[in-house]
């Protein structure tokens, strides 16, 4: 195997971006038991906020990251209050259909508004070499930012009152309600945070790749696999599974073939489903 450190770095960088999308999706499922098909579209919208901030105002994506997250937080929270809240506690199929419909509306509207033109931000494109690993600065910055944001989410969930309320709602909504926690508010907050993290991922993708109105769907399939691998509703599981996904892609391409590499996470998924159906960090229904 040539350049294992480079392969490791490539896998970790991609995994970090996947993790930003995946932890939000997992958080939302954990708190609401809602499978949000529109989650990838939040990443797309965040990417466009960053792109237009760059294109029209000349703002660096590192600066526009926070406004993009704030805008998508408000958008996500509003959407949750107005629409998603109505299917909480309903059969899974209801939320699935609703979010699928929302996804179609979002990306079709985006195609009308933004056109199908592929776009991207050329920012920090110069590569740097460290310990034999070469990578463009945008990838490194993306990696660091993804780690910071995921770390911030963990700290928020662990140490703040609203974060604890989200965790309590995730663990047992009835008990949380009995303890005086405003579970509705916790759900809205969780959905908003999920959307904001997806927006951050979208911003990073606009720097390291390219953006287009239906990009959310491309990332969604991977993200679902990651969330199931990590354990539905487990934020820590999603994080670990995201890095595992990135590393499998990177090493799989080098050691096996680019055709086989994308199948590896699914092989792992099948194995996990057989030996640990609740996922890496998930808890079974009986444990809840």
């Amino acid at each position, binding site marked *: 195997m*040539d*350049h294992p450190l*480079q*392969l490791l770095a*490539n*896998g970790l*960088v*991609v995994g970090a971006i996947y993790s930003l999308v995946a932890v939000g999706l997992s958080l939302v499922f954990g708190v609401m038991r809602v499978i949000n098909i529109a989650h990838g579209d939040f990443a797309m919208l965040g990417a466009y906020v960053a792109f237009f901030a760059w294109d029209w105002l000349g703002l660096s994506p590192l600066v526009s990251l926070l406004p993009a997250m704030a805008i998508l937080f408000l958008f996500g929270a509003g959407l949750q209050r107005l629409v998603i809240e109505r299917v909480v506690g309903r059969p899974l199929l209801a939320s699935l259909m609703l979010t699928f419909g929302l996804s179609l509306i979002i*990306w*079709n509207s985006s*195609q009308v508004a933004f*056109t*199908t*033109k*592929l*776009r*991207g931000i*050329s920012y920090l*494109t110069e*590569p740097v*070499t460290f310990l034999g690993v*070469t*990578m*463009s600065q*945008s*990838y490194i910055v993306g990696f660091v930012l993804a780690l910071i944001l995921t770390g911030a989410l963990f700290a928020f969930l662990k140490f703040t009152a609203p974060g604890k309320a989200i965790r309590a709602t995730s663990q047992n909504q009835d008990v949380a309600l009995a303890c005086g926690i405003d579970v509705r508010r916790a759900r809205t907050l969780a959905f908003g945070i999920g959307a904001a993290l997806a927006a951050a991922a979208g911003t990073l993708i606009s720097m*390291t*790749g*390219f953006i*287009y109105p*239906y990009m959310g769907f*491309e*990332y969604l*399939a*991977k993200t679902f696999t990651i969330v199931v691998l990590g354990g539905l509703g487990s934020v820590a599981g999603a994080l670990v599974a995201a890095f595992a996904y990135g590393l499998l*892609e*990177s090493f*799989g*391409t*080098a050691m096996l*073939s*680019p*055709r086989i*590499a*994308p199948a590896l996470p699914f092989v792992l998924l099948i194995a996990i489903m057989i030996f640990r159906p609740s996922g890496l960090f998930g808890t079974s229904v009986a444990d809840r």
Partner: protein
Amino acid sequence: MCSRKYVPSNDTGLTRRNFIKTTGVVAIGTAIAGHIPTIFAQQKKPLRIGASISLTGKYARSGEEQHKGYMLWAKHVNELGHSYGKADLPNSGEPGLLGRPVELIVLDDRSDPTTGVRLYNELIHSRQVDLLLGPYSSAVTNAVAPIIENAQIPTPNPMASSTAIWEGRNLQWQVQVQPPGSRRLPGLTQVAMEHGDEKIAIIYEDSEFPRNAAKALRARAKEDGLQIVLDTAYPVKITDWTPIVQQVMNSGATVLAGGGYLPDAIGITRATRSLGYQPNILSLLVGVALPDYRDTLGKAALTVTGDADWTPNVNYPGAQKYVEAYRSEYGGVPEYHSAGGYGAAQILEEAVRRAGTVDDFEKIRDIMFELKTTTVFNLYEVAPLDSPDSGLQLAANRVMLQVQEADGKLENAVVYPDEAANAQWIYPFQ
């Protein structure tokens, strides 16, 4: 139950004979009046031309441009009675095609061949369109080819460069308008050999057109004595090209060629720059010719090469008028997908006008296969009907482009072949 009997009344002067005469005249009058709109409608009945195009999904950007080409063609035919460069054809002049206004029925196949099959079935059997135009991409064209053959409707295909769709299949109803995939990336291997490059890596999306283009590249590389150190396909649903480019880098290749569509071109270039990989030639299939490529990548696109079926400064009949019309209709400069759409529709237009009918499909088909003509897009001549590769494009050409900087602006310079070039090929890739 009471029965009603007609009783003539002298007060009204209505006798049985008068009644029969009156009702007879009314009936005949009504019948004629009733037919007048029908006769009128038959004269002006829209000519419904159907197609599925990738308006969403991976190929949406290119599909949208092809769609613009179709729409602009329909507009010109409906307004002028002919498209640009085709004013002298028989049966031109009256607005529409043979006097019938053209109505395009375009459905979105979402860049998915299976959906394309369903939509062409719908267009042919449910919507019963009068004529067809081809979809976008080799993948969708290949998938819908049996449907069109069964329906026996003459169909020009604008953007399907894969030769595998036509080679050895003796297709009877479909022609290729785009230059074939065997002529992709012209000059690549020659320039590489001239500069002493020995190792080439070919990576390509695992779908119909890139597979076919890679096959031709592989053959040319071998013919020209280049060593293929990596030859691999990658899946269609890919979002990160870094691991594949890393593999190319590890292979020691000094020439990297391949890709697929616009997203692949951007992704491969991003990964190449990110990894600091410095091949002597980076040459990509679809993408480099499109403005989105330069707009997205900025200076990272510099010195990347890629081919084009068409450039906005060509001098084919009507081409410059077409460029102006595109500019005023949609803004900006057209690229080859839209010109290809327009050009393919012109082939159908010319075949129909020469046939003088829209109903005799065999006559239209025979003319479409025999035509030797020029559209705003390219030259046109296909392998004849009785040959194994019938419908395969024989005359259309490509040029090689390179992203270069002029007066601080990025633009595509034509660098190959020499007779078409307006700039020198910058070697090596910088």
